[in-house]
């Protein structure tokens, strides 16, 4: 018997790996985070365009004031106590992930952005990328976006689909391949 597709090899993340509610950063233990709630969703595809199910996506971002809840941020004592900055989602059968979060503030010297990480069967190393918001003047001066070859930068800017709702598709390889960072 030669099984097909995902049956051939793990890693088999346990079904409990993605906790219910881990993709909602707008609240923590019933307390609401400060700032404007937004949605971010997108489809993850491989080289042939096939949508990938059960892929794990994580995000890390600053709070609504642009502060990271971490001692390396000089302003961390002012960080929103009800915003952890981290979330995890799994893609569904259509390859779609979704998060509820707050619109991040722009940290000093940066445009507002959301860090992404992807882990999946066949990815020998986790992949990291960063999502930017459309229409932000600060995108022009962001040092991380500037490190990306100019022709590929637009692939890191999400599309606004409705007020407060953004779409950020991820292509792991091939045409319109998402720029990933050498972290």
């Amino acid at each position, binding site marked *: *018997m*030669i*099984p097909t597709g995902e*049956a*051939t*090899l*793990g*890693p*088999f*993340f*346990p*079904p*409990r*790996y993605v*906790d219910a509610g*881990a993709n909602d950063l707008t609240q*923590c*233990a019933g307390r609401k985070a400060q700032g404007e709630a937004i949605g971010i969703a997108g489809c993850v595809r*491989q*080289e042939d365009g096939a949508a*990938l199910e059960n892929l794990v996506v*994580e995000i*890390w971002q600053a709070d609504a004031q642009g502060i*990271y*809840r*971490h*001692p*390396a*941020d000089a302003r961390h004592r002012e960080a929103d106590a009800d915003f*952890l*900055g*981290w979330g*995890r989602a799994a893609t569904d059968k259509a390859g779609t992930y979704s998060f509820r979060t707050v619109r991040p503030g722009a940290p*000093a010297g*940066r445009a507002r*952005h959301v*860090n992404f*990480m992807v*882990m*999946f069967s*066949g*990815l*020998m*190393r*986790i*992949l*990291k990328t960063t999502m930017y918001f459309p229409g932000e003047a600060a995108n022009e001066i962001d*040092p*991380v976006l500037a*490190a990306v*070859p100019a022709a590929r930068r637009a692939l890191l800017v999400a599309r606004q689909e409705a007020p407060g709702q953004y779409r950020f598709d991820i292509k*792991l*390889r*091939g045409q319109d*391949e998402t*720029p*990933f*960072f*050498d*972290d």
Partner: protein
Amino acid sequence: MQTVIAPRDERTQPARIVPGYPQTPWRNPAQPLVRRPPTLSELTGPLEVARRVQLLGGDIAGHGEKQALGQLMHLRVRVLDEDGAPVGGAVVEIWQCNAAGRYIHPNDDEHAPVDRNFYGAARLVTDDAGSFTLRTVKPGAYPVPTRDGWWRPPHIHFSLFGKVWLSRLVTQMYFPGEPLNGQDRILNAVPDAAARESLVARLVPPTGDPFDALVYEHCIVLRGRKATPAQP
């Protein structure tokens, strides 16, 4: 407090496309990865993951009539940063197949039996010394259904959160003296022999304490020149 992060040594990291691992050519980027200047965004990271996910503890072998089948073992792990300092308070997620080589997962086929007393997933937090102990049963080997007969050796998966976004690590651990280690395409995707060896745990000579379990020791380095190789 600004962390300085040394880059990983590329020879210690696995090739991205692995012959015989059919998903790898479709999913790993073809474009060169972009080197970015580390900013606060990468030099911070989630320190409170345990407020968002359910901790499952590190004892997954079961007890009494509900003890899982297989060789009972304790795995003592230390988690270190790039300077060799222990990383306390780190969330560690662990998953493995049962003693017969079967995962609790809808995509695993039916080549081996499920053990109703073994779920195979742990989630815990390291202590101040960066340590934790996993009580489990030794995972079995399992066949990879490619035409040329590749078996995965016994291994345990780890996902770790360090102190910063740059130290997020997903890897695997192997067992010493396993004949299948030498032919495993995922372990051997790491070019450097010493780096491969760093993925193999050490069997602690039995002392009678504990009397009922083998004891293994392992060390995971999250970042830097001596970083533990990533594994899928």
